[in-house]
């Protein structure tokens, strides 16, 4: 019962955050001088297309551009909730259809990256804590420092170069050009798998580095505690001992780290995708911002934030299940 109450509380909270984010996204549309429609008209005129004055006035009215900010925001939000995110001038398509096209790749990459981060950082963190100051621990720390210091785009460039030089994998994207329009097949799947490692490494490196450090630090704290000595004294097998008690206690900060890991993940994903040319939402946002396609930009920020918030909710709920102090506190 308490758990359900907690979940409902978090859901309400998530909705509130979403409102705030939507306000921020809308602010981004509004910030450039002049409204987006006048820049659209200017672009149309530049390309030599006739601008129908009447339809522009109609458009202006339907988007509420002749009304105060807060009304415009209300209209935009109302449309958004109903799944109408406006029109992308760059793609001359509805924003939602442009985004939906790229959603699967975004989700796939993010989810795989999250999995990789946990699968790598937990065992390495345990190893580092158990063999403190060993060669392996040193290497892990080194990797951690490098992961924090190398900018994502640089790593992407370097790995792309290595992949191209060393393994002859075509540069960028998630599949080779010859498979673009083909139906799913074994060859296509293998080709896809070959393209996956470079983006995954770029996205995960910073998060993995941070999580290894967290895992190592918390586990080291736990290992010094008396219950560990007690367990050893009563002759428990070392591996059972480690995995049954201290590791479990050290897991909670790892689960709650999902909170900051997800925004970080989408950040990394954005950079990697822009440099590597992946079909995800990040480059879409980039192109929208460069081309002042503001509805598309706002839509992208909203979607990325919604994904983050959903992820946060999940990590909160998982934490509430594993750690009774949170759902009862």
């Amino acid at each position, binding site marked *: 019962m308490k758990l359900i109450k907690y979940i409902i509380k978090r859901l309400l909270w998530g909705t509130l955050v979403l409102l705030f984010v939507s306000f921020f996204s809308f602010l981004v549309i509004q910030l450039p001088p002049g409204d987006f429609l006048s820049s659209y008209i200017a672009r149309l005129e530049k390309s030599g297309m006739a601008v129908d004055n009447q339809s522009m006035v109609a458009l202006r009215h339907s988007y509420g551009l002749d009304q105060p900010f807060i009304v415009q925001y209300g209209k935009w939000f109302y449309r958004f909730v109903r799944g109408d995110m406006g029109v992308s001038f760059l793609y001359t398509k509805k924003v939602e259809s442009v985004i939906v096209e790229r959603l699967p790749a975004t989700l796939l990459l993010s989810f795989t990256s999250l999995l990789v981060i946990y699968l790598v950082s937990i065992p390495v963190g345990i190893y580092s804590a158990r063999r403190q100051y060993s060669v392996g621990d040193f290497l892990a720390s080194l990797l951690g420092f490098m992961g924090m210091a190398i*900018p994502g785009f640089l790593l992407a460039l370097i790995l792309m170069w290595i992949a191209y030089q060393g393994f002859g994998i075509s540069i960028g994207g998630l599949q080779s050009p010859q498979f673009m329009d083909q139906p799913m097949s074994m060859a296509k799947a293998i080709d896809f798998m070959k393209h996956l490692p470079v983006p995954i490494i770029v996205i995960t490196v910073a998060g993995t580095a941070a999580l290894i450090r967290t895992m190592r630090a918390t586990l080291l704290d736990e290992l010094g505690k008396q219950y560990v000595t007690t367990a050893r004294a009563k002759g428990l097998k070392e591996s059972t001992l480690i995995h049954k008690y201290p590791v479990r206690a050290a897991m909670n900060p790892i689960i709650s780290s999902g909170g900051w890991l997800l925004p970080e993940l*989408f*950040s990394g994903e*954005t950079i990697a995708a*822009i440099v590597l040319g992946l079909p995800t939402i990040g480059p879409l946002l980039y192109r929208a911002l*460069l081309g*002042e396609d503001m509805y598309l930009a706002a839509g992208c920020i909203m979607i990325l*934030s919604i994904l983050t*918030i959903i992820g946060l909710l999940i990590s909160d709920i998982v934490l509430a299940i594993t750690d009774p102090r949170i759902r009862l506190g």
Partner: protein
Amino acid sequence: MKTPTFFRGFRKPKNSEPNKFNALHSASQWALIWAKFKDHKLAIVGLYILVIFYACILFSPIITPYDAWEDSKYIYAPPSKIRIFHQGKLSRPFVYKQDIILNTETFERTFKPDKSKPYPVRFFVKGAEYRWLGLVKGNIHLFGVDPQTSINLMGTDVLGRDCFSRNISGLQISLTVGLLGVFIAFILGSVIGGIAGYYGGIIDNIVQRLVEFISCIPTIPMWMALSAVIPQDWGNLKVYFAITVILALRSWTGLSRQVRSKLLQLREEEYIVAAKVCGTSGWKIITTHLLPGFMSYLIVSLTLEIPKMILGETTLSFLGLGLRAPTVSLGVLLQDAQNLAAISAYPWLLISALLVVIAVLAFNFVGDGIRDAADPYKN
């Protein structure tokens, strides 16, 4: 070098235990922090690197042999080789003149050293005019060669501009963005976090929610969105400040969180209660009694925040959303290295990236060192 007075008594008596004991007990907090910081080898290395970098920034027009915006005929010249053997004989360091050979079919430029005449590297030579710190006029450069040839320690770029000069100038922008940004974040974070932590209750709740809101938006997309709306017609200086403010808008949240939790903890201490009983004003309690109590923690998070900002600026500029040419920052320089063709043909363009990595590592090491030293009473 003379030992600063404040820990002179602390270092000297190494062999006599009782004295050391006394010195340890009478040493000030900062002396203890410094002593512990010095044990952290990597932090000391980091500190040296940063001192060198910032010295380069301070004296950049003197250290650099050329103007960072000056074109030359040496387009995409590889880094100059400094030689010491001319025709088998040892001589002072010199460079050979580079002959440019243009392949008329591929239009590829290759450089061939003309080994007949050495051009010695001279020190304190006259060169391009500059204004040091915008005030002192000068034309003396630390090193250079005769104007018939050129010395490019890090090669040249697409317009034949000297990459060494450009990188040093780039450091100037890239490393100060972090400092200025952290300064803004520090003020925002400590004021807002301080108010939240000191007053607690509803104010605290509102601030906490605001911080959570902001942390829910992925950093890079948020930075990208904000910097994309910087008007195109803004001058270099304005864009520079706008970027630092944008970077700071994200960083203050973490800082305010730390200030708040530390304040909540300190608030319950008896000396604060005593001050309250004496009728000291809230502002005065925060600034004179509470802030010094966790200054070291603030400094730790500040040092660890600087490298994030440096990376942020570099990334934004690399993507063309941050600083723009003619401003030279390391990120702007890396725009030239955006594709694989450029990187494999002109690998020296990546030296800018190397500088970023070194600076960020140095800041992280120093931050780590300060973190370990921040609480000298722990052990």
